[in-house]
């Protein structure tokens, strides 16, 4: 399980929604990625501040009528894949929009 995992969009990415697909291009590697509608919703919600389980529960499950455990498992797989390609940044701490972990404030 994710615990409190945070996701932020990667650096140097250009993105555009075309039809029901999200096109993402890495400016540093010229690699093109295509996300379907659900994956695009997670990517867009990846603000670094909202935990992944909150994104899944409050947005994905409500919008697409998917059971939480199924959606969570799929989302975990997705973010791991996207993180391995630099499209997302994963952390167990909140992240700044640039993907850098924030210092905790008290």
């Amino acid at each position: 399980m994710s615990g409190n995992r945070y996701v932020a969009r990667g650096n140097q990415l250009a993105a555009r929604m075309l039809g029901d697909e999200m096109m993402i291009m890495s400016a540093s590697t010229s690699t093109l990625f295509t996300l379907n509608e659900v994956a695009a919703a997670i990517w867009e919600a990846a603000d670094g501040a909202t935990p992944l389980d909150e994104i899944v529960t409050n947005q994905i499950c409500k919008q697409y009528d998917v059971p939480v455990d199924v959606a969570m498992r799929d989302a975990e797989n997705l973010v791991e894949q996207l993180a391995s390609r630099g499209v997302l940044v994963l952390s167990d701490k909140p992240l700044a929009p640039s993907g850098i972990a924030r210092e905790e404030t008290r």
Partner: protein
Amino acid sequence: MPGQTTAAERLEVVIEIGHLPIRLCVNDPSFIRLLETRYAGFVTSRREARFEFEIEIAPEAFGSADEDVRVQWDSECWRLDRSDFHAEWNPATARGKIRQTANPYSIDSVLRIVHTILLAPTGGFLLHASSAVRNGRSFLFAGVSGSGKTTMARLVPPDAKLLTDEISYVCRRGAQYYAFGTPFVGELARAGENVSAPVAAVYLLAKGAENRIEPMGQGESARALLENILFFAKEPEMVDLVFEAACDFVSCVPVHRLVFKPEADVWELIV
């Protein structure tokens, strides 16, 4: 003596592609004649040019022209390097230098690269596609080598004008895109006509047993377009510009898959 040139005499030719005149200067009369012949139809009598290159003819080749080209931004100028040419070009001064042997392929590559760099900020691009004008509109036929670009160019009907059999030149004017003729030739070895027309459609070529047009979604269209756009510079800003250009283009211009058999009647679908 009149009409005679000396080795030190500076000769020049202005080549205008896509309404962009570029002056090439060289003190080699035979190379100027080669340029005038190769780019005939695109040589302009205009004196003004947006950019100017001094060409130095090297006596010997540096190596094979098959090597990948390297295009880099170096603080204030672009550096273009391949084993058969070295070029640098400062956009601020609009001047550059090219060192190459007396062959037409090196200068052709430099011109293609320069045009891709100049088009990028304007939303335009060069595309691996043959293209032609028919009924006042242009049609582009894109695809990798062997997909049928040359075949479509060879089958162009008498009422259409060939723009190119190899590299299509796409300019953006607001929400409208125009294709221009180019002298960049492919297998057909026939330069395009120096005319332009609004782009009506792009067809991604696929050979088949019959002729038919299949719709393509915008995402698929953008992927196909990006696979066929020429871009050499790896700078993130340039990659961004090309990505945005492709996305903007497919939002404005229909892209279809054209399954075709290599016979003249395929052009009955292109109207």
